[in-house]
């Protein structure tokens, strides 16, 4: 059975049905759709503005004027602010000690103002893909060709924000790895990877920011070292950088210079008298209790 679209009225005439209700519904739906899209567009614009603002704070704001002579940086559009502050620019402030725990659960505190060297703090995360090359490179400082004496420290968030096992898996033991959320707060780290360069002579930060490539980071550290006050005197002996055959050869040179040649009796002491010809008996070494060793390493 088919239902007629039209039907005669009581007076027998055919009449058109009223269409006002459909139109109103259409207007209401259209208004609702427009409203929803307006909200979406507003949200997207706001999100876009947030991103632009963040980029600007990191030093790579879209539309920012490019300094003259820095056209080459277009090839590597990385947010780079690491490096010494310009003369007259406000200082970056003192660098606090980084204190926390190691991935193994030991305690570790790194004072960054107790020497005449640079300290490069790398704030990394275990789950950050961008951090991966920095994890590898920072733990092989020699391959980075950083200035001599530069100390590298990797800082992750504390055990409340990072899985120690994952951090441990990335740590090689060649440079200190400290887990400390407090350090991230102290250094106002916006995210990882993030780097802070500290001048140990003053205990102040001389640069901070991010770099997109390991080479770029190393170059910035070298530049910072170059820009430091020339003529500084080193207060401490630098760690020996020789190893293996080179170290052996260097030791031979020193002994030869002191007149100690191969076969010299002083190289083969048999009694304490050979070591201390006229001095008192050697004191009991630390780690020896009641004549027996209680520790293997001293």
């Amino acid at each position, binding site marked *: 059975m088919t239902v007629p679209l039209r039907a005669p009225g009581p007076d027998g005439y055919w009449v058109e049905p009223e269409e006002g209700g459909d139109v109103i519904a259409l207007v209401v739906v259209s208004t609702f759709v427009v409203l929803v899209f307006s909200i979406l567009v507003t949200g997207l614009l706001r999100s876009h503005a947030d991103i632009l603002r963040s980029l600007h704070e990191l030093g790579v704001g879209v539309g920012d004027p490019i300094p003259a002579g820095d056209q080459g940086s277009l090839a590597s559009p990385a947010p780079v602010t690491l490096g010494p502050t310009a003369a007259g620019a406000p200082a970056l402030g003192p660098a606090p000690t980084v204190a926390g725990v190691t991935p193994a659960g030991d305690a570790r505190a790194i004072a960054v103002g107790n*020497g005449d060297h640079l300290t490069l703090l790398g704030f990394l995360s275990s789950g950050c893909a961008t951090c991966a090359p920095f994890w590898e490179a920072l733990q092989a400082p020699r391959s980075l060709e950083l200035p001599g004496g530069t100390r590298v420290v990797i800082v992750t968030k504390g055990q409340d924000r990072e899985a120690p096992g994952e951090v441990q898996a990335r740590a090689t033991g060649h440079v200190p790895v400290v887990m400390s959320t407090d350090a991230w707060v102290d250094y106002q780290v916006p995210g990882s990877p993030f780097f802070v360069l500290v001048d140990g002579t003053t205990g102040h930060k001389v640069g901070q920011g991010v770099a997109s490539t390991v080479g770029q980071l190393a170059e910035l550290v070298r530049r910072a070292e170059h820009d430091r006050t020339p003529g500084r005197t080193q207060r401490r002996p630098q760690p020996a950088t020789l190893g293996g055959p080179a170290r052996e050869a260097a030791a031979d040179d020193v002994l030869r210079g002191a007149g100690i040649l191969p076969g010299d009796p002083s190289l083969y002491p048999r009694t304490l008298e050979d070591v201390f010809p006229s001095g008192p008996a050697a004191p009991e070494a*630390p780690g020896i209790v009641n004549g027996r060793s209680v520790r293997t390493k001293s």
Partner: protein
Amino acid sequence: MSSIVAHGIAARLPDGFEGRIFVRPRALGATYPVAQFGTFPLPDDIGDFGSGAVTLMGPDDVFATLFEYGPESVGTALFARQGRPPAFSPDDFSPIVLRRGLVGQSGTQWFFTEAGRPFSFYAVLGSHQRRELLVPRVNTLVTSFALIPVTPVTPGARPQWN
């Protein structure tokens, strides 16, 4: 002033000091906590008593290690002293006490029991001649750490299946 805590040892590091508190891997045998402090960058791979570190000291530097021994040492004559030394005097430091004799340096070593744990405190001055200036730094350090008694784990206290 930063604080570090681990293995029953807590330290509020005086300005300029850094440090670490660790236990060596058990693969080396029975191991106990060691705390090391220095006014210079401490490499990670150094000996318990500072070998590998004392050669990096400048004349104004101080190195110290707090070394715990096994519980079998408690009650022995060497650890009869109760509590850490309250303060050192410059006369307490001597070049012949050094674990490794380095020209110009001097050291001191004390054995004691505190919190029921046997310890040795070993400190090195970067310059014996400057001991009048450096010993107060050691004294500040000695008062900065706290030793927490270790509760022996009794079999009944361990988690176990019923």
